[in-house]
């Protein structure tokens, strides 16, 4: 054990994680999907489908509600989020384990979506987009009489 002042660096003492592991933030290859010079990341997503809708949840830490853009063009859903930087003003990085950047991800949807009924919500850096299926795409229950 070293006491305070004996070392000039961070000394990790306890690391515990259960069911959760660090996966590197997935950086988008430069020029592949955007022409931005800065590094952009792909958010981790969960997507599930039920009878009435497709629901997408994306981890976009550091992005504020007003800085999220959701676009559905035909069957291509695009999500982009601009990370807020004002908190970093006047800081000097001394130790770093991850980088910070905007988020971007694009999906081709297999379902016909009711464009006008799309809703989105942001809470604690998690974006939830609900994409209701168009009536005709919903399974119909036919009762045999």
């Amino acid at each position, binding site marked *: 054990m070293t006491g305070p002042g004996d070392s000039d660096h961070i000394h*990790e003492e306890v690391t515990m994680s259960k069911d959760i592991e660090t996966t590197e933030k997935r950086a988008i290859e430069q020029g592949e999907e955007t022409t931005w010079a*800065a590094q952009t990341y792909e958010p981790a997503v969960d997507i599930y489908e039920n009878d009435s809708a497709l629901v997408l949840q994306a981890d976009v830490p550091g992005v504020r509600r007003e800085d999220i853009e959701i676009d559905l063009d035909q069957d291509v859903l695009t999500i982009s989020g601009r990370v807020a930087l004002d908190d970093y003003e006047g800081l000097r990085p001394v*130790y*770093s384990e991850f*980088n*910070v950047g905007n988020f971007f991800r694009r999906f081709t949807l297999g379902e016909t979506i009711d464009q006008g009924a799309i809703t989105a919500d942001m809470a604690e850096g998690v974006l939830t987009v609900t994409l209701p299926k168009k009536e005709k795409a919903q399974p119909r229950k036919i009762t045999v009489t």
Partner: protein
Amino acid sequence: MSLLRFGADSFDNILRLQRALNRSLDHPFFGLGGTPSGRGVYPPLNIFEENEGDAIVLKTEVPGLTRDSLEVEVVGNRMTVAGVREIVSPEGEFRYHRRERQAGEFRRAFRLPYEVDRDTATASYRDGVLTVRVEKAEAVKPRKVQIS
């Protein structure tokens, strides 16, 4: 290492932050000689010094938690960050197309290179980013000495 100062161009600002973080990846502030670094451990942390170096600011991306499930402790030069992330399954019948987000429990405790003043510690959780700010102990704060 220089202080982050941002201008009006947001892409330029992002680049500036990314370059600064890249440069600090191999800064001796974290343990190289035999001490395990936090690389590969959840959640990854970034640590900054504020202005004149009087305070340190820790930031970590832990989206989708509740404030109640987060725990931050500062004692001496030791800091602990812990939390639990739950992902609630949707109700009714559903099927997953993709499942990439992780849930679970984490705890990281580490010692900083200097003593901090725990009475000054504040923590905030906003947009899925946990920020902890704490001032260095008086004895290790940099002091400008007036020349008389």
